[in-house]
């Protein structure tokens, strides 16, 4: 066996993956050739060093902690498919029921408010005349402070005194008075 043949088989020789016959031929060559022996020695030493390299072991509690984090990021936060389908089914039924109740309550409230408002309008015309005066001065104030996101003291008093504001909570401060949808009862 030549040096070239031997060197081409060195990897497999080191990994113990040659046939017994080939391994014997490589061994014979290495015994006779100092240069190839040195090459083999260096490669075997590198493999041995790599095999010995250890990883610093983290503290034992790390393994339970990382398991818990993975659990929280997977099973706990995203239900497995079967559970999710069941959850979605029951969730959509509940949401439908909730929407129906909210719609019915809103309708009753609106009709009652309109009826009361209509009745008061008949009884006291002077009270109705005062409202536009308040609204116009309030509008002027809002226009002078267009970026104000918060309710004015007057708004708060008005709501506490019985103003029903229709709209999403985030819209209350910015739009309730300007939109003119506040109802006094």
């Amino acid at each position, binding site marked *: 066996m030549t040096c070239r043949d031997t060197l081409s088989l060195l990897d497999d020789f080191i990994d113990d993956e040659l046939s017994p016959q080939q391994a014997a031929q490589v061994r014979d060559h290495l015994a006779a050739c100092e240069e190839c022996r040195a090459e083999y020695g260096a490669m075997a030493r590198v493999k041995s060093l790599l*095999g010995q390299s250890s990883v610093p072991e983290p503290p034992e509690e790390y393994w339970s902690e990382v398991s818990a984090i*993975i659990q929280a990021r997977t099973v706990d936060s995203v239900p497995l498919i079967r559970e999710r389908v069941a959850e979605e089914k029951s969730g959509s039924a509940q949401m439908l029921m909730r929407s129906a109740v909210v719609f019915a309550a809103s309708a009753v409230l609106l009709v009652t408010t309109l009826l009361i408002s209509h009745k008061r309008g008949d009884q006291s015309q002077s009270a109705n005349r005062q409202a536009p005066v308040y609204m116009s001065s309030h509008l002027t104030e809002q226009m002078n402070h267009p970026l104000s996101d918060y309710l004015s003291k007057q708004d708060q008093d008005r709501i506490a005194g019985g103003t029903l504001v229709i709209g999403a909570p985030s819209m209350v401060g910015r739009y309730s008075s300007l939109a003119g949808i506040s109802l006094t009862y």
Partner: protein
Amino acid sequence: MADSASVNRWTPPHRNDERSIPELVEGFVNDDASAFTELVKRFQRNIYYLAYRILGNHLDADEVVQETFVRIYRRRKEIENVASFTSFLMRIATNFAIDLLRKRKGHGGLNEELDSLSGETQTELSRRVRTPSEMLDDKVTMQEIRKAMDKLAPRQQITILLHDVEGRSKAEVAAIMECTEATVRSNLHIARAKLKQILTKRLSV
């Protein structure tokens, strides 16, 4: 506290008194949360050791462990079509570690930042139970090997880590790396030759 004297080689994570890996995998695919939890316990160490060897520090190894399991959880329906769960899992871990390695190299390397930390802080991050002389020998050898490894292309680096460090077969490495055994042999040969060249100078190999 655990002893770090062991070489942290790859060991099949299965004991006779517990559910086998195929049983756990089947449970996991069929939405059994306890099977997933058990798989995490069985494989987390192997992924951590591999990731630590690739990236060289606890924080990155921890990130690889977490991300690997989060990703396999999301891709659990694909497992039915893979030949080997272990190879699939290790492939996810390896690919994520390679991505992280490329990012780290692009940003100067987290290893260098960690190397500059005080010994006390390093100990807090990953406590080792070694005698001072063993720690010094280990540190020098590991640092030199890590520096030499950094000179390799990522795929050569992973190939030699999986084969020579973790002791996996060429067939296993090929399955994890999604390549042929011939490619594994080729990468292994190039990586060993480069490492020999570098380490011969540094460690009088």
